[in-house]
């Protein structure tokens, strides 16, 4: 063990040196959304500019800091001046920033600054300088006062947006792999399981099963081979926390897997990652290799008698593979069709051997619990839902991003305080949680604390953590139709209630959106929904009607307007709307005339234009380009 530990200590030192260098440090967020927002050209501009100016700076990658609505994010630490974060940086803004740095100045326009960095796992605090009072940067708000971060508790996301995800040294320098080393050195598998049980950690993938109990069942099952599987088949549309964790802090997941493997007695592990996440696959692959080089994965980990190999399995695009029995079939290389439980995978899983399947976020929480203690962890959150949960806050909301809050935080705080509400002159109508298995929670229930049980009671589920905010321009019938279309496509087809029932629901909803349905269809829709939820084989089918049932429960008036009056109040369902131009708003600029693909808009310059509704194909192109928002469906 001695050699390995010494090697880790050296790596850790290296990591500290790059995390807190003596020179100016520029970090650029390059997780997938940062890249989509143009982070790579920004990084190239910094590299090129710094070389041209001969400026001694350190430029590194980092993961996602969560503030997606400000991507690309750039985080600059100036040794004697402080640490500042800048949003929506383009390559064009880079030269001025570098010029300021060269003048020993602080670049203008920071979103917020850090006063300190506290390493969650070892408790060390690094203070950053406060800018001089005479400097305008002195008024830049502190990170802990920014509404987006104020109510957050970043425990799973502890390293995201701070360390370089491609550098194991920086993970080690933040207390990484300490939990694994301690466990291998001082704890029996049963002690580890007891700690996880005491923490009352529940699976973050959606169902909320107690992680400790799952591990114990696998531990007590005798077998010559056991497996640990990380479920990174994040299929819920609108949820991307697992992608972000894998791209920003892959070692946290790996460490969690290794601890789990030790506890249950597994010697092999698989990380099953969605095909749609190439960057997550790449970063996890690098992490496994670096860990192998540091004797953290493979034979005789850290010189102990414990061995465990980990490999990645790339998915092939099937939503149902997020269901654990289907996922195992997919790792075996077959069609991902679920099977009846019991037997549970913890008893008979991969190739019939006992297997624990944990979600990415669950595994990334494990090192925190073991380092900080189960009791400490269980004081966060509520009695029945301990700890924190990461949510992706998306849709019709101002502050789109990845947020982590203690469980039990009211929805209202997440949506309005952290998320900043719907924005413009719109109002939030509902929030959709739990993906296609979840439901829509209406605005009047926003005081609900976010917990596994309260959300289920309200007709939705916690799910993997997607929160899609809907405002008055979102049609609830269309949302239900959307989810049924999704599930019809993703149903594996094995059992009839799901295969046929979901299809029938989709057809009925199609009719409602097209204006061909009757009031009788509403009754039929509800009946089919009840049958599918009772009689389906697996979780996908049993929860499939949730979007329909929650829609009918809270937004029945919208459904009735669709079937009785053939009206879509949100202005979404194409057959039930017509586009019109507001005479008072239209400036007669002609942009819409040029854009319309069917020449349905006419008018003279500087005079309000009109739409010939008989020609209009309702493509919405004019609405998108109108500079004064004069065109809207009605």
């Amino acid at each position, binding site marked *: 063990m001695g050699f390995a530990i010494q090697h880790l200590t050296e790596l850790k030192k290296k990591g500290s040196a790059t995390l807190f260098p003596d020179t100016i440090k520029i970090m650029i967020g390059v997780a997938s959304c940062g890249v989509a927002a143009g982070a790579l050209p920004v990084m190239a501009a910094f590299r090129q500019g710094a070389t041209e100016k001969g400026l001694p700076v350190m430029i590194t990658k980092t993961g996602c800091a969560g503030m997606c609505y400000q991507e690309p994010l750039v985080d600059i630490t100036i040794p004697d001046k402080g640490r500042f974060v800048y949003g929506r940086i383009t390559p064009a803004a880079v030269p001025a920033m570098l010029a300021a740095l060269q003048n020993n100045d602080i670049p203008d326009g920071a979103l917020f600054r850090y006063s300190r960095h506290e390493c969650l796992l070892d408790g060390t605090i690094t203070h950053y300088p406060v800018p001089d009072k005479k400097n305008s940067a002195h008024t830049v708000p502190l990170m802990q006062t920014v509404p987006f971060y104020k109510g957050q508790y970043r425990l799973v996301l502890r390293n995201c947006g701070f360390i370089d995800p491609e550098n194991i040294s920086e993970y080690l320098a933040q207390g990484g792999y300490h939990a694994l080393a301690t466990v291998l050195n001082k704890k029996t598998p049963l002690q580890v399981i007891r700690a996880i049980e005491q923490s009352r950690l529940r699976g973050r993938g959606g169902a909320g099963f107690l992680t400790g109990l799952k591990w114990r069942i696998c531990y007590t099952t005798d077998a010559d081979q056991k497996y640990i599987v990380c479920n990174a088949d994040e*299929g819920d549309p609108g949820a991307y926390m697992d992608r972000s964790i894998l791209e920003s802090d892959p070692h946290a997941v790996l460490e969690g897997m290794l601890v789990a493997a030790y506890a249950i007695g597994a010697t092999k592990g698989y990380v099953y990652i969605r095909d*749609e996440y190439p960057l997550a696959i790449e970063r996890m692959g690098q992490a496994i290799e670096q860990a192998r080089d540091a004797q953290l994965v493979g034979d005789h980990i850290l010189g102990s008698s414990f061995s465990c190999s980990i490999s990645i399995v790339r998915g092939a695009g099937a939503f149902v593979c997020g269901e654990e029995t289907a996922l195992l079939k997919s790792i075996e290389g077959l069609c991902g069709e679920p099977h009846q439980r019991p037997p549970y995978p913890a008893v008979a899983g991969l190739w019939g051997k006992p297997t624990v399947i944990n979600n990415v976020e669950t595994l990334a929480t494990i090192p925190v619990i073991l380092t900080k203690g189960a009791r400490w962890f269980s004081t966060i959150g509520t009695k029945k839902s301990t700890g924190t949960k990461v949510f992706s806050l998306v849709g019709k909301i101002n502050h*789109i991003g990845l947020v982590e809050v203690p469980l039990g935080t009211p929805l209202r705080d997440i949506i309005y305080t952290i998320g900043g509400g719907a924005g413009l002159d719109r109002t939030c109508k509902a929030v959709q949680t739990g993906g296609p298995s979840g439901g829509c929670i209406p605005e009047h229930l926003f005081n609900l604390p976010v917990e596994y049980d309260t959300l289920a009671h309200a007709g939705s589920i916690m799910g993997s953590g997607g929160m899609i905010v809907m405002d008055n321009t979102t049609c609830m019938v269309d*949302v239900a139709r959307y989810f049924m279309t999704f599930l019809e496509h993703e149903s594996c087809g094995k059992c009839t209630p799901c295969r046929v029932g979901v299809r029938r629901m989709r057809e009925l909803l199609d009719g409602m959106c097209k204006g061909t349905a009757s009031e009788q269809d509403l009754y039929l829709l509800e009946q089919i929904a009840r049958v599918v939820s009772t009689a389906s084989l697996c979780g996908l089918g049993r929860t499939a009607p949730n979007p329909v049932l929650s829609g009918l429960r809270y937004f029945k008036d919208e459904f009735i307007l669709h079937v009785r009056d053939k009206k879509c109040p949100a202005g979404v369902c194409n057959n039930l709307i017509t586009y019109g131009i507001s005479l008072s708003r239209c400036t007669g600029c002609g942009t819409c005339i040029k854009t319309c693909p069917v020449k349905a808009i006419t008018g003279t310059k500087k005079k309000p234009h009109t739409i010939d509704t008989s020609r209009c194909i309702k493509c919405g192109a004019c609405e998108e380009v109108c500079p004064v928002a004069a065109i809207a469906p009605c």
Partner: protein
Amino acid sequence: MSSHQTVTINTNTHSHEPPSLIALLQKIQEVNGYLPQDALKQAAAEHGIPLSKLFAIATFYNAFSLIPQGKHIISICHGTACHVQKSENLNAHLARVLQLAEDEGTSSDLMFTLKKVRCLGCCSMAPVIKIDDTVFGTMTQAKAEKLIRSVEKGMPP
């Protein structure tokens, strides 16, 4: 003589872990751009697997295609966040631009394949599209059309 390239996988693994047929198909698709019938037949014969089993897997998973794909793949995200930002209208517009009969398919010159994907996980940038390996966010119909036109002319999007 068929034009496809052959792929074999290592079958000599641990006894209770037979090789993954998904991995085999992924390799065939990587090499050929899609799953040619001949390649599937050959792989089935070589590995002693019924062709029907390979076909079942190939049609179960979204990632596989049994027909040739365009030179550039345009994926339109239909995640929930993109849906509420009207990705269906965007999809319909691009299908019009590429003169496709359906909202998915390959253009007649085999230049582009337009396909729906379930969620690219870039919800903060909704609506998003992916052209080959690059994701583009906060799309409008006009912006997306412009990107396609520049790819068509051989310029980076």
